[in-house]
């Protein structure tokens, strides 16, 4: 209170004038106007983990959409010569211009010093009894002695070529798969498929769940009772089993997966929406809508659902990783999208055969699944806090 300057004993005459406060009558609002979602966004922004999740999701979506434009490979381009090249290459120096990379399976590639693979070398001579192969590179002879581990790369005079260094694979940043397809582009395409399935399945769930739960909750009474018993029965069927059976009947493909996921997960959404509607419909604003003559449809669409949106959005955000995971699982057990399409699950499945020799082929798509699921879960958690009406002040 900045009134210390006032001399209490002599206050200027003009201070005692009565103020005509017309403006005090009007109810001025000084605080900024924030809608529900602006307010939630403000709160979400403060949650570091969710913002990290959100950024990852945005990067993921952008990459999935535009990534392929910047790649010289196509997801289905095969090159058997370049099969199963890892992202990290161990180079041996032949001379100043020539370097080679010794791959698993006793294959030797010529390369530049910074890791650009030039070609697969063909042996000029090979002897499996004595266990050696002879190659020629720009007039130099290279002998690969695989009689004893570690394998040795020798020159004509039996001197070992020196290990040069580990470099990144410049042709294929994340390496190639067993058919020589670029793994990076396949993971990006996998993201397309996985995210597409997840979003579409979630949207389908959203519409069925909201419609079913909304009607059930709003109608109440016997209708509600019957509709919820149906939901109960559906939820007793083991979901995974049901999806697997459905997939077997429908033949693997993009649409069947969406149908399978969409027809199953709405049960939880329906229950959630019903619960929300049940508690909201007793509120006075719904009564007010009735007294002004609003139809049931109007009450449901204009009043009840917008108020139930918070929990619905949170549930949808949490449903996406579940859908991604289920899709990955289905693909992993061979019920996923058919080749040459790739989802993260099929990538993992393909890598399974050679995972001892080429662990990166399994690790990288799995990592993509993990990061995506974590990102969505972090975002969902943040949204739950941000949209919780109890925290609103």
């Amino acid at each position: 209170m900045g009134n210390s300057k006032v001399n209490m004993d002599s206050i200027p005459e003009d201070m005692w004038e009565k103020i005509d406060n017309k403006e005090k009558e009007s109810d001025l609002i000084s605080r900024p106007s924030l809608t529900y979602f602006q307010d939630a966004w403000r709160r979400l922004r403060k949650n570091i983990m969710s913002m990290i999740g959100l950024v990852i999701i945005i990067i993921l979506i952008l990459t999935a959409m535009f990534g392929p434009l910047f790649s010289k490979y196509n997801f289905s381009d095969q090159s058997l010569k370049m099969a199963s090249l890892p992202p990290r290459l161990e180079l041996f120096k032949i001379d100043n211009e020539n370097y080679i990379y010794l791959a698993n399976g006793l294959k030797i590639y010529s390369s530049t010093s910074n890791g650009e693979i030039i070609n697969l070398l063909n042996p000029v001579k090979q002897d499996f009894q004595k266990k050696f192969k002879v190659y020629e590179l720009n007039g130099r002879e290279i002998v690969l002695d695989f009689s004893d581990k570690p394998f040795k790369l020798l020159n004509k005079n039996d001197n070992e070529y020196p290990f040069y260094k580990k470099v990144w694979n410049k042709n294929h940043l994340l390496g190639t798969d067993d058919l020589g397809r670029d793994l990076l582009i396949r993971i990006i395409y996998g993201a397309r498929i996985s995210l597409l399935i997840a979003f579409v399945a979630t949207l389908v769930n959203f519409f069925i769940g909201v419609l079913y739960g909304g009607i059930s909750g709003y109608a109440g009474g016997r209708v509600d009772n019957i509709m919820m018993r149906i939901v109960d029965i559906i939820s007793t069927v083991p979901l995974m089993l049901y999806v697997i059976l459905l997939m077997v009947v429908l033949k693997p493909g993009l649409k069947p997966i969406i149908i399978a996921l969409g027809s199953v997960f709405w049960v939880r959404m329906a229950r959630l929406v019903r619960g929300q509607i049940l508690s909201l419909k007793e509120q006075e604003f719904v009564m007010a809508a009735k007294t002004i003559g609003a139809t049931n449809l109007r009450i449901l669409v204009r009043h009840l659902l917008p108020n139930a949106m918070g929990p619905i959005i949170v549930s949808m955000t949490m449903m996406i990783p579940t859908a991604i995971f289920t899709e990955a699982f289905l693909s992993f057990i061979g019920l996923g999208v058919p080749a040459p399409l790739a989802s993260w699950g099929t990538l993992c499945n393909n890598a399974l055969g050679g995972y001892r020799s080429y662990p990166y082929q399994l690790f990288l798509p799995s990592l993509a699944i993990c990061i995506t699921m974590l990102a969505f879960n972090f975002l969902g958690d943040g949204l739950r806090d941000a949209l919780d009406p109890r925290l609103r002040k």
Partner: protein
Amino acid sequence: MNKEKDVIIKVRNLKKYFPVKKGFLKRKVQYVKAVDDISFDIKRGETFGLVGESGCGKTTTGRTIIRLYDVTDGDVIFDGTNISTMKEKDLSSFRKRVQMIFQDPFASLNSRMTVGDIVGEPLDIHKLASGKERQERIYSLLKTVGLSKEHASRYPHEFSGGQRQRIGIARALAVDPDFIICDEPISALDVSIQAQVVNMLEDLQKELGLTYLFIAHDLSMVRHISDRIAVMYLGKIVEVAKSEELYKNPTHPYTKALLSAIPIPDPDVTHKRESVTLEGEVPSPINPPKGCTFRTRCKYAFETCKNKEPSMKNLGGDHTVACHLLDNKK
């Protein structure tokens, strides 16, 4: 004037029972008798107060009259039309003439809609105005309740309780109603704000010739605003009188107890006041006592009270009471 014409709403033997479902198969076994056989008339242009404690059925009465609940039995005759048996879809013209103001200013406005849309919704539903006309109407409604047009684009949570209640009033006024049910419109507000809202309701009544059913538990406010007051206890009306008369000459033992329990904001007066303490608790409305429902807590109760339900007796001057003590005195 024809006497019938003076009455805007006539409630006859109104009952509203809520089923209590019990057991495995949810068979209806019992009923909560929230409103049990009440009758009253409200005259055009008057304010009819309805008081009672929580659970006495006053809110249910209001909601049943406006058909938020279906009527179990009895008639509600609004301006000559019996609306108690009407189907929901035929109620449209009734909904244009009868409106409601709710208790909780925080729950009665949809927080996802702007104030303009909230006030404008009745206009949309009844197709009363659209486009520019709708806009103008919303602004004038907001002005009527002392808000400005800048408020139309704001959301309810930006307003204080009193302001929200005024938005609720604006919404009720949008359809230009004749009769408004005020369901505890001020009990959630601060004292200094209560007077603002009450004065506004009084002004609107004078200007627009409105009729109010004013439901509240605060007897001093009800007495201030109402012309006549009905006192409810356990689903029944026990006494109806002009508000002066009710205060000066309360006749039913429950009315007496209720009036005496109210502390007066005047230390000397309130210290002298001798309140009649009511013993015990309000009985369950599922199994209300036979005979007079108040007899379990009434210190004057005698044999007749147990067996016979008291009927409403007119004491003259619009003062009616349901109590057996009146027979005894004679």
